[in-house]
């Protein structure tokens, strides 16, 4: 088992320094800004929880949060079942498996702005294949003008981009199941649904938790892809939390509100992730 050894601190020093430098210092800055007000010229006044109140009561924040939750909920509802379904349909071994996995993994390694640009080119009604196809079917589809089209495209893009992560994780969990389980199920007369419910799903629980956790976290923080695709529009119909925050922070340089919003945002992410993490490690310990 593990030995008691305070020397451990020495080992983690490089990591602590690097992460602390990148995390603590900026965080302190943000906290600092969130409780102060400035009228310019680098002069700051104490503002207490004023900015927090403003943000928490602001329509703009609620709207952005609402959009974000809708987005995250939708993509989770699509990507997790879809990913699992594809993993289930994949062969367990054979020469095609590496080929399939490599092709599926490709979207995961494309720089996020290229993903956005690619879908931009793909979905525009005049020059894009998808745009042309949908309009050709008689549906008036233009993501630069119609909010529903923008949402549709953003979600489709995310599904395209990240479902493979779920597929790969689910697949890893599936191939770890020994053959004997399937053989026993056959002998017990269990049908495919029973096999899924009683053997595959329970054995995939751990990987699925990781997948859901990762997808929740990353989709909640999403910035680049939708920004490049729609710029947050039309209007602000696809302005999610990160996009809104960057607009306020780097665009308007409203340091106070931006900082307060940052902290609220961070805390929400932290809370939900902590819940997931606890559930995950509690099952591991069992």
């Amino acid at each position, binding site marked *: 088992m593990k030995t*008691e050894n305070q020397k451990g601190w020495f080992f983690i020093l490089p990591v602590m320094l690097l992460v602390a430098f990148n995390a603590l210092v900026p965080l302190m800055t943000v906290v600092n800004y969130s409780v102060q007000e400035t009228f310019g010229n680098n002069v700051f006044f104490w503002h207490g929880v004023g900015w927090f109140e403003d943000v928490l009561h602001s329509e703009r924040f609620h709207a952005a949060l609402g959009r974000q939750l809708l987005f995250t909920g939708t993509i989770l509802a699509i990507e997790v079942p879809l990913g699992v379904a594809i993993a289930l349909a994949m062969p367990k071994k054979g020469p095609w498996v590496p080929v399939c996995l490599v092709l*599926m993994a490709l979207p995961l390694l494309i*720089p996020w702005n290229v993903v956005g640009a690619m879908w931009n080119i793909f979905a525009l009604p005049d020059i894009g294949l998808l745009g042309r196809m949908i309009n050709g079917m008689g549906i008036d589809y233009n993501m630069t003008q119609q909010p529903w089209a923008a949402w549709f495209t953003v979600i489709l893009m995310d599904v395209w981009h990240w479902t493979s992560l779920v597929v790969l994780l689910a697949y890893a*969990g599936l191939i770890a199941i020994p053959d004997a389980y399937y053989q026993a199920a056959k002998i017990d007369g269990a049908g495919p649904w029973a096999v899924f419910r009683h053997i595959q799903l329970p054995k995939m629980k751990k990987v699925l938790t990781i997948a859901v956790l990762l997808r929740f976290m990353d989709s909640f923080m999403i910035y680049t892809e939708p920004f490049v695709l729609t710029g947050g529009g039309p209007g602000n119909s696809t302005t999610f939390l*990160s996009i809104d925050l960057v607009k306020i922070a*780097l665009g308007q340089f409203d340091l106070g509100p931006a900082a307060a919003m*940052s902290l609220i945002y961070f805390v929400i992410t932290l809370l939900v992730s902590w819940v997931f993490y606890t559930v995950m490690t509690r099952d591991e310990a069992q």
Partner: protein
Amino acid sequence: MQRLKPLAPILYILFLMLPIYWLVNMSFKTTNEILGSFSLWPQEFTLANYRTIFTDPTWYMGYYNSLLYVSINTTISVAAALPAAYAFSRYRFLGDKHLFFWLLTNRMAPPAVFALPFFQLYSAVGLFDTHIAVALAHCLFNIPLAVWILEGFMSGVPKELDETAYVDGYSFPRFFFRIFMPSISAGIGVAAFFCFMFSWVELLLAKTLTAVAAKPIAATMTKTASSAGYELGLLAAAGCLTIIPGAFVIYFVRNYIAKGFALGRV
């Protein structure tokens, strides 16, 4: 029903390849052709876009910059994570569980929260617009991930290995480099893969911390999109070229993808 089963992965892969094909298609067309007509393959096949990228420093330096800071980041992240993961795996010390969790929370931090503070921080220490700045900034989320992955793999190596080495007279550094690291080589590969991946794809911080000298390809591309009209053909070609390093890396780790993706913890 059995014969229909491979249909799902095949359809899915076709779906994945479609936008990529469209991008490749555009990269071989001139911007005029793209805007003027619509066709499934280039009517006037041209390599002009690619030629521009390979000859214009503003473009190819973008790739160079990106690859450079990604490599630096991967190296730093894995190198720092190795001893830390070893400590978390083998030792119990004051606050270890809380520290581990705190590390993971950094992976959960929205980059947007850090955009402005990072800008100010790195400017303050005079590292603005350097490769090392982006490399260090990406450590924020890559190091926790690397530690998590490596710790998982290390826990799979029995402690007896360490003890045997000491009994055999190995000093700790020698043991670590000659015995321990080879035994978790798959884990190091997986960690390096993920560090590469998340650093290569990230745009927000990379753009915020650079201006000219270390400008990543991502920033060059967005600049093209916004300034002086859309040079679509060029954009498409640039995009296509960014896919290549990723494809290359996946190909390398293809045998580990199925297993390694379980992050050693499944």
